[in-house]
């Protein structure tokens, strides 16, 4: 990338000396945290970028090697802190796989409901901030209002709103509270009208379309080559979702579609995520109708001590493929715990998407990449 930044031509005159190096971040309103992007500009046109990450690095993987399996569970909530339930699901499932146990059906269904609610919450935050980046400030408040309903469900369920630590290795700690079904159903009934309202505010707005269509294009080949996953991959036309391809929990029992885009631009990613919210609602509606009775915890020993071995397990987090690679030496603590963060890998595609476009597009593309720096930096 450094080579690309060296943009010098033989006949550079003093009039060409208009290249500006703009340091965007780590404190910047549109970099969603502490991302720093160094932009090399020709006027407003971008001729090179370099991402500097790591401002939020906490050494989570090192911490994981020094905590027991159970102790580490709450730490994963702090990765993608707007989708903490998904992180917990991925971790618990990976350890369960290593232990060779599966959660009982009731626990699985509850996990699916909470995780899909989390997907909606994450996409709502994305939608609000993305719209704010592009200059439409009002949707932000609407989406946060609605996300509040989800957070209230979490609060009722486990007492925490953001870093929930909702799941345990082997199942669930708490059973459902009185009125859970009604609350979730009420949320599901209200969702479509709200999503339609956001669409009404944005989808047909000419400025919105002009700002997003054809911006930050990733073709399917590029997306695969760059390892991009999640809605960004699907917007490029690759119909791939881990929930369908390599089903975990009891996702195979539910009926839902994988929305895909055609052009792989910001507008398509926007449409794909909106549709994903509707599909997540479909899953929740099916799941909440048939929560089976039974235990909520599998037979997991009090002291989690998986046999020596290694396992990679990944789930479809709101941002893409969230994977855990755990190496056990048979001890109390993981010998090595690697987290494969979707945001980190997706962010790598930023350079490809913005080169040759304008400064305003960088903001739109950062928004559409939907990064959470807690996960990028770990």
């Amino acid at each position, binding site marked *: 990338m450094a080579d690309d930044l060296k943009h010098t031509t033989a006949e550079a005159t003093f009039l060409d000396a208009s290249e*500006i*190096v*703009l*340091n965007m971040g780590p404190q*910047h*309103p*549109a970099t969603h945290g502490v991302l720093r992007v160094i932009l090399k*500009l020709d*006027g*407003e046109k971008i001729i090179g970028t370099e991402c500097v990450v790591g401002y939020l690095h906490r050494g989570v993987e090192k911490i994981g090697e020094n905590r027991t399996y159970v102790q580490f569970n709450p730490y994963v909530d702090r990765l993608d802190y707007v989708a903490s339930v998904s992180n917990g699901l991925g971790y618990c499932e990976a350890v369960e796989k290593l232990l060779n146990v599966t959660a009982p059906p009731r626990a699985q269904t509850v996990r699916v409901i909470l995780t899909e609610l989390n997907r909606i919450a994450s996409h709502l935050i994305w939608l609000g901030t993305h*719209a*704010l*980046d*592009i*200059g*439409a*400030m*009002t949707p*932000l*408040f*609407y989406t946060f*209002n609605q996300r509040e309903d989800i957070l209230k469900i979490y609060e009722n369920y486990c007492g925490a709103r953001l870093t929930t630590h909702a799941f345990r290795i082997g199942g669930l700690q708490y059973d459902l509270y009185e009125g859970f079904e009604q609350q979730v159903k009420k949320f599901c009934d209200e969702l479509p009208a709200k999503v339609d309202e956001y669409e009404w*505010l*944005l989808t047909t*707005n000419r*400025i*919105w379309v*002009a*700002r997003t269509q054809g911006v930050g294009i990733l073709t399917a080949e590029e997306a695969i080559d760059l390892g991009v996953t999640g809605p960004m991959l699907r917007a490029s036309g690759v119909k791939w979702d881990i929930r369908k391809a390599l089903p975990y929990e009891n996702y195979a029992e539910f009926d839902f579609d994988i929305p895909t885009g055609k052009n792989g631009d910001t507008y398509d990613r926007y449409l794909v995520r909106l549709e994903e919210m509707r599909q997540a609602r479909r899953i929740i509606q099916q799941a909440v109708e048939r929560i089976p009775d039974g235990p909520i915890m599998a037979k997991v020993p009090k002291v989690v001590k998986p046999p020596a071995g290694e396992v990679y397990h990944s789930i479809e987090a709101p941002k893409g493929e969230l994977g855990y690679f755990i190496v056990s030496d048979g001890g109390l603590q993981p010998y090595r715990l690697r987290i494969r963060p979707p945001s980190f890998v997706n962010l790598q595609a930023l350079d490809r998407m913005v080169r040759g476009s*304008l*400064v*305003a*597009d*960088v*903001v739109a593309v950062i928004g559409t990449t939907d990064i959470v720096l807690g996960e990028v930096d770990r």
Partner: protein
Amino acid sequence: MPPITLATLKPYIIMVLIVGIGPLGVGYLVLLERKLMADMQARLGPMRVGPQGLLQPIADAVKLLLKEDVIPGMVDKWVFWLAPCVTVTTALAAFSLVPFSSEFVVTDVNIGVLAILALSSVGVLGIILGGWAANSHYPLLGSLRCTAQMVSYEVVMGFAVVAVLLMAGSLSMVEIVKAQAESHRWFLFGAFPFGLIAFFMYYVAAMAETNRSPFDLPEAESELVAGFMTEYSGFRWALYFLAEYCNIIIVCSIAVTLFLGGWLRPFPSVKLLGWLDYAAPVGSSLLVGGLSLYLVKRQPRAFDQIVLAAIGLAFVAVAGLFAWPAFNELFRGVFWFIAKIMVLVYSFMWVRFTFPRYRYDQLMRLGWRLMIPLGIVNVIAIGIVLVLRG
């Protein structure tokens, strides 16, 4: 030396009033904007300072005045100092040319419209220099955007104004309003539909000139942090802010004067609607006053109750004054003028809360490929219509 009378002193009195009340008015305009935004976004907005947050502008002003005056290192000091002064001076000076009513005007020069446009184009220099002087890339980019935007949309605005000048046959603000009174219609509907097109162009160009969303590229907070104001803080920043909102009022005043009949009541030639001159100011003041008095009970603190009651009574008193024919005669023009400005300002704000922001190249394309050709065609069309009508 002519003798000093009330008539010769009037311009100075009005000037003092403008400079004195102007910043306060701007403060309340900001409060209005925040309240409206909050209302559209399902929240309350400022509620802490004073009753219903009504003293917020004063608290803000005090805060900005008392803030430490930070001048970053490496800036071009005197340009950094000069730039906000240029912007705010020109913005306030432009008020002296705005006819709030046929009487309530500092001076009516025979190149009124041209003079206001000239002043606002000088004000732009303050923004450009401020961005440059800060010696930082975000302000610089903001300045560059601002320059290109202003130069392009000044042309658009020029064409829209020329359309009105053709209809009015004068550059004087007062004469333009009088021409509308004589032709019995606002120029908005003059040479129908070309007056409407001119107004639309003026409206868009005014939004671009005042850096309002969706054309707020020079200060787009998600891209350029705060654009040309990034390095400014405290009172200097407040000057820019003041100038910005003054400019909004100025462009709306021009729009009202040129297109919406200035201080004239709606349908000025329909005698049957004469009661509006009393009903509208009295009714609206009573409404505001009554609402304030109604809300007094809900205030948690005694101080808030007193303030709100005072405000309510003041508005009731204003209503009483407007019911007095002599006062009404004198100030009805001002009422209509301000009411029309408020409608336009409200629409500016509404647009801001609703639309995303244009991108730089799209803004330029809109200006040069659509608005300017449209403006040229519109001016020619109005010329033809006027010639055909004789």
